[in-house]
């Protein structure tokens, strides 16, 4: 519909960037850095433009826009190159574009194998952007998997002490999840008549040709795939390792974007495509979410490592998404889920960046090792406290809006059990406050150990620049959520109707 294929450009410019960087001389570090920054900057602008344009022109309706194709890609098996975005993918695109840019900016302090690092990073970005645009299952799956390899390398080469373990664990876990997805895709493909891999078509037709049992099966298969990405409670053990071992920027991407793909996939595929299954499983899902909320909060309360704490906090926060997803009848809940995805992306991303900043200076993340940093680094402390508050859902920041909507939505979803589950879930808010404040107090407040940390330097301009946009967005969404919600409104209403089928 738009005359020039903006999505394709958005996805493939990082790819081109990767190619370009590949041919730069290894020694010209700055050339490499700035080139890759540029090649992540352009897609960011494009995503911004898409968001802007979508918001002002297309928010009203639930269809896909900027669609490209379907262009036949692999004719014999009906694979098409088919892109398009709607109200739930546009914000994700925005988030991805922004976070990728910021992470690359924050990776300027990488010194080891700089070139490969940025090549992999740009590949990763391409994959992520692709996932949020793909409307063809094959394409979706390809992008989904494409991310794994760069991620594997990024963790494995530039990671922390147990990087090899973390890398392979991440790789195998996620692959394990996605294979079930593949089976389900094939079942859908051969179930549909005529056989198709187009997501929109299958959304319309799947409930008609799948038997109830088949729906449950496919749903379960997809769920495993997505749940491991999210990660839903029992599948979460890869996350702490990956987050802790990964270099800062990669943790940001992991928390900010990759985790969202799970929930995005559910919203884009599982929920509308298998309504009966959703109805069947909604309560267990919500309970998983509840467990994740409480469990994640408690576990992060016990953490001694700053980064691990943040990592587990995201287990807890994604739990809210699952709870909301369980409450499939409520537009509010689903909207809250989207809000939660976005705000968690912003907040946790920022937290990881900040933890990285501290780690670069102090070379430790031991919470107990610090204390009273606030006196020495006021600005840094200010930012950290700001995001801790945002993370514990303080009003005026995005976290609060999302959590509130999740609660209201799931409570009013009209499913009896949800009243209880929600009530329990609200407890998570208290616990979150508990561990966040505990962290803040033990790291930033109290006696300052001049002998040990006298050398610490205040956060520098580049680092502030990497965090500032996130802070602005967090607060902006906190005070003016209306634009965002209007953007997603139509799509989500449509979604809920699809589930209600």
């Amino acid at each position: 519909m738009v005359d020039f294929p903006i999505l394709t450009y958005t996805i493939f410019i990082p790819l081109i960037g990767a190619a370009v960087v590949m041919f730069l001389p290894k020694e010209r570090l700055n050339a490499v850095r700035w080139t890759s920054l540029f090649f992540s900057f352009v897609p960011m602008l494009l995503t911004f433009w898409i968001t802007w344009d979508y918001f002002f022109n297309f928010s009203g309706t639930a269809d896909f826009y900027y669609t490209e194709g379907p262009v036949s890609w692999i004719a014999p098996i009906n694979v098409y190159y088919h892109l398009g975005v709607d109200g739930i993918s546009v914000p994700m695109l925005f988030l991805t574009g922004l976070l990728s840019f910021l992470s690359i900016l924050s990776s300027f302090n990488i010194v080891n194998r700089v070139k490969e690092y940025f090549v992999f990073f740009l590949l990763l970005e391409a994959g992520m952007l692709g996932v949020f645009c793909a409307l063809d299952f094959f394409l979706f799956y390809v992008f989904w998997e494409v991310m794994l390899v760069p991620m594997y390398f990024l963790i494995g080469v530039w990671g922390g002490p147990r990087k090899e373990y973390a890398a392979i664990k991440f790789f195998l876990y996620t692959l394990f999840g996605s294979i079930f997805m593949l089976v389900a895709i094939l079942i859908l493909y051969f179930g549909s008549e005529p056989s198709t891999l187009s997501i929109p078509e299958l959304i319309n037709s799947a409930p008609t040709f799948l038997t109830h049992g088949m729906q449950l099966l496919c749903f379960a298969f997809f769920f495993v795939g997505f749940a491991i990405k999210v990660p839903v409670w029992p599948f979460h053990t890869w996350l702490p390792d990956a987050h802790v071992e990964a270099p800062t920027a990669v943790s940001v991407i992991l928390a900010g974007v990759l985790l969202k793909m799970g929930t995005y996939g559910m919203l884009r595929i599982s929920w509308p495509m298998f309504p009966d299954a959703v109805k069947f499983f909604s309560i267990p899902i919500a309970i998983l979410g509840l467990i994740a909320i409480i469990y994640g909060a408690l576990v992060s309360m016990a953490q001694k490592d700053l980064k691990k704490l943040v990592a587990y906090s995201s287990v807890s926060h994604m739990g809210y998404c699952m709870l909301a997803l369980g409450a499939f009848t409520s537009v509010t809940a689903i909207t809250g889920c989207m809000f939660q995805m976005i705000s968690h992306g912003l907040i946790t991303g920022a937290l990881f960046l900040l933890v990285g900043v501290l780690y670069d200076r102090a070379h430790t993340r031991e919470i107990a090792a610090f204390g009273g940093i606030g006196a020495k680094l006021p600005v840094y402390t200010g930012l950290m406290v700001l995001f801790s508050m945002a993370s514990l859902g303080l009003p005026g920041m995005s976290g609060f809006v999302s959590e509130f909507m999740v609660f209201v939505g799931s409570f009013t979803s009209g499913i009896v059990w949800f009243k209880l589950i929600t009530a329990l879930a609200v407890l998570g808010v208290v616990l979150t406050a508990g561990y966040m404040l505990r962290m803040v107090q033990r790291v930033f407040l109290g006696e300052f150990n001049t002998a040990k940390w006298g050398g610490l330097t205040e956060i520098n301009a580049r680092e502030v620049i990497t965090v500032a946009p996130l802070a602005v967005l967090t607060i902006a969404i906190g005070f003016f959520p209306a634009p965002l919600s209007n953007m997603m409104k139509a799509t989500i209403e449509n979604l809920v109707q699809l589930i209600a089928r």
Partner: protein
Amino acid sequence: MLETAYLIPVYPLFAFTVIIFFTRWNEKLSSAISIGAILIGLVHSVGVLLALISRHGLPYEVSVPFIQHPKILLEVGMWIDPLTAVMLVVVAIVSSCVQVYSLGYMHGDPRWSRYFSYLSLFTFSMLGLVISNNFFMIFMFWELVGLTSYLLIGFWFEKKTASDAGKKAFITNRIGDFGFIIGIILLFAYAGTANYQEVFAKVSAGAISPGMLTAIGILLFCGAVGKSAQFPLHVWLPDAMEGPTPVSALIHAATMVAAGVYMVARGMTVFAGSAEASTVIAVIGLITSFMAATIALTQVDIKRVLAYSTCSQLGYMIMALGLYGVDYAHHHHSVGYYAGTFHLMTHAFFKALLFLGAGSVIHAVHTNDIFEMGGLRKKMNITSITFLIACLSISGIPPFSGFFSKDEIVVASSTHPFFFVGTLLIAFMTAFYMFRLYFLTFEGSPRNQHKYDHAHESPTSMTLPLIVLGFLSIFAGWTGLPFEWFGLTGFSHFVYHGELAEHHPSYLLMAISVVVGGSGILFSYLIYKRKAWSSEAIKAKVLPIQKFLFNKWYIDELYEATIIQPTLTLARKLWWFDASVIDGMVNFAGWFTVKWADAKELFDKYIIDGAVNGIGHVCMAGSFFLRFIQTGKVQFYALVIIVTSVAVVLYKVTPQGAIIYLVLALIVGGVGLLSRLARPERAETD
């Protein structure tokens, strides 16, 4: 005026932003901006009050959508009725006084600018809380004031106690808000909106079942319990005294802690809808009030005494409101509502005054312990006089403002004998410990000469607010006079709930309350001024009780033992669970494989160093064993080929036969292998 009332919170917000981002480095300018902003706000709010009076308290509301959805409409807006207007003025006045006072008190503090920015932020949040027109919005500002209180309590965060106190305050409040938010969500669920008026309309229309209404009422009240430091969540308030004294005066005496009371008054229709909820409120209020008063009797830290007295007074108001609710539910009108709100106002003034006075004292003698003070009257005239005014006021001695409001509370409780007794008892205790405080601090002979010598009257910037507040502590109450003067109706005709009800002062009750208060003063005079009875002796007599009270009924210890530790332990347990069990479940299989002694280094090499998870271990183990099928004997390979082929063919004919065949094959083969192993190695063939 009214149309632009939303600007009142905006001024301090503006001040906050400017200071934080631009003028942080210029201390003078920062404080000037902050104070200027709040003064403008004060003027504006007074204007609003007058405007409202001129339109005889006709409420004014505007609102704009915040999030709009078919199922949910969240809006931001303002609702200005007499209660709001009064609160605005009170907050503005106290805030401006405190800020001026801080000029002197915080002199030379390294984080000066940030201090004032925080104060502005707080003022913004508090004004926003007051002005907001729906539960959602009040909750947002509710949390914001919580945050600022956290920041200000922990302002001197180098002090462990301070940062601890901040954390404690925040988390305790969170626990209260846990109920509060559920209550709000319930309101959403059943009333479909958060807007006060619409909710009230629904409630009065009986759209919500009584049981649910009770639940909602109690849950909402949880919030008030947290904010207004009511039992059982009162524990944070005394610790909050770690913050700078002006902060205590502003936040933990006059305004923020009053927010709970304000909320109860604001949502009175909801609470009054259910007698049970109202009863709960009233009882909680009474308990808190009584408990706090008893504790205050024994404290030696000047600020803690005041803190507990705050708790107690807040309990008073809550109780009054609760009682009003009870009566309302039983369809007969009482003065509780008016009493509560009225006391809210007067208390704001004299409690702020008390704290500021205490601050001035501390500023002079650099200690909080009243047993190290004494005889300060000669050194600090203004302070002592204003302090005395405040004490008289809180003790309910006419014509001081406290008398009017307190008297109304007595009136309100008079219809409920149990509460009536409690009220009087508390009134007595209040008078007693306040004057205990006064005498020990200002009268008698100095108990710590050294400190006494260095003591001096505070600078004007600190005394000026004292004087202002002193005046207010005297005259603010007079608005409660039950008759018109200068054509203005009294407070009771301005701030009321439901339909306006006439009521006539009962002079008997007045007399009783005055007598009770007076006797309290008398006793403390005899003990601490005249030394007619030695306080030590009395203490010795009731030592266990004294200990019990002095340790604040051991409630902190109780919580530590029953809630905090268990939670942390559970957290650690779960962490262990996560690290060992969930991962371990997957890693389990690997465990026994590692037991293979001879293969140990093999495993170290290939597994420990790279195993992914349990499936990994299982596979590795499988790998380890499967390799041995690969004997390297070519004839064995041929054997496998033929045996499997035959087995498959047999399977077609007789499946059982195939099984038997395979089993026998294994046996025979095994026997052959064993016999071979048994046989000694034969001579090499060359």
